[in-house]
């Protein structure tokens, strides 16, 4: 994963529109103002991590981009195409952006492979045979080929999330959004999912990753956004954000995360220590 740190995103012609661009986005739920004038863009091939305290609006931002939420004002462009005016079908959006949820949201009544072929058959119009070939290839890519006939409830959380990633890829989206993909997982299952995401990043996929895994964000992303109270308050390279954050609230947030992270580590060590002593 070390290479991905230094992955270059230069030499992209400035003629091309960004993969995603959000301008002056406002979003509220009733009286609760959740996003307040958010603007940012995601260049093709770029991996951007979004960090920030709970309730800062990270999920809402991702959900607006894949049109799971209506916005109050502002503009959202995907590859130069404005998508917040309700003129695009779900199919149009799915060609552009895939989304990974914290809770996986696999379809429990379908087998793993059925989860993967549904959209290619119904939306892309592939034959069942082609869709299954493609589905199996995607499962192989996430290391779960042998689970093709299992039901989601027979899988571990980590396996579920890997299937969910394969399923999202089955629509060939140009951008992938990850909303805390490992937050619902037992600690020992986090690694396998992060590996899949890192592979995807290395393959050049344009991605936005909302995460509390600071080490991962640092390694995998080209740029980090720090959100607080509905705004992007600081952004920069991983080194800038993690090693020398400018704003006191970024520093405070990172300090808290590290303290938390540190404590978890110590606890894990402690437990392991106990195990070794009969």
């Amino acid at each position: 994963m070390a290479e991905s740190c230094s992955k270059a995103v230069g030499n992209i012609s400035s003629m091309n529109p960004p993969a995603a661009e959000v301008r002056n986005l406002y979003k509220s739920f009733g009286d609760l103002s959740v996003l307040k004038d958010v603007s940012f863009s995601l260049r093709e091939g770029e991996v951007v991590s979004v960090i920030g305290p709970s309730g800062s609006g990270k999920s809402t931002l991702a959900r607006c981009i894949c049109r799971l939420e209506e916005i109050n004002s502002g503009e959202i462009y995907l590859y130069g195409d404005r998508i917040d005016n309700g003129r695009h079908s779900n199919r149009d959006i799915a060609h552009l952006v895939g989304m990974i949820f914290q809770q996986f949201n696999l379809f429990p009544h379908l087998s793993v492979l059925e989860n993967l072929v549904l959209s290619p058959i119904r939306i892309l119009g592939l034959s069942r045979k082609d869709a299954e070939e493609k589905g199996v290839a995607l499962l192989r890519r996430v290391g779960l080929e042998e689970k093709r006939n299992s039901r989601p409830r027979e899988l571990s959380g980590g396996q579920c999330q890997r299937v969910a990633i394969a399923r999202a890829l089955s629509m060939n989206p140009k951008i992938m959004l990850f909303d805390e993909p490992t937050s619902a997982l037992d600690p020992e299952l986090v690694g396998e999912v992060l590996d899949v995401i890192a592979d995807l990043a290395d393959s050049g996929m344009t991605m936005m990753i909302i995460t509390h895994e600071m080490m991962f964000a640092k390694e995998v992303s080209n740029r980090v956004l720090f959100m607080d109270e509905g705004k992007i308050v600081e952004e920069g390279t991983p080194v800038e954000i993690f090693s020398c954050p400018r704003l006191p609230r970024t520093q405070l947030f990172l300090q808290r995360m590290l303290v938390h992270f540190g404590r978890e580590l110590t606890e894990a060590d402690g437990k392991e220590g106990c195990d070794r002593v009969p």
Partner: protein
Amino acid sequence: MSLDFSAVSPYIPMLLAGAKMTIQASVLSVLLGSLLGTFIGALRVVPFAPLRYIAAGYIYIIRGTPLLIQLFLIYFGLPSLGLNLPAFAAGIIGLSINSSGYVGEIVRGGIEAVPKGQWEASKVLGLSYVKTMRFIILPQAIRNMLPAIGNEFVTLIKESSLLSTLAITELTMVGQQVRSVTYASFETFILVGIVYLIMTSSTSFLLQYVENKWKVA
């Protein structure tokens, strides 16, 4: 007093033929009623208020009026609009419409029990509202609803006795015919009751079996 079934026993084949008619009417009505009810239940949750209100009004009227009146409206009322339906057709339509009101509410509950994340995952995979409903939501909702639909079927078997008022020769009607020739009212209706009991309990048993199998699958 003493019960004497000997007068009634020659008519048992007739009663069984009536039971067959009851089963036919109930099965047909539960199928049509479930189809219509699934549609009504789906309308209850569409993101378009006028359709939701229409479906809600339909359910409100169906559940708020007696089945007998619904049957009379269709069989005796519709001819004044020039629509003469044969008794059996009128009966099936009446039972189906009645059942659809109850199934509609069951379906709505089943749909609402499917987690929101299923809708969202389906949407970001590009499926339209209708495709999401058809491939993702309803298959899960129907599984959750199976016990309630089973109860509805059992209810329908019993309520189909009202078809006797349209002179359809289902079990209750046959019972009345047998009584009128044998005068053994008590014995006849005890037998009729037992046949209903057998039909309802074996239906419940069968449904329980299907449900268990479905759960494992």
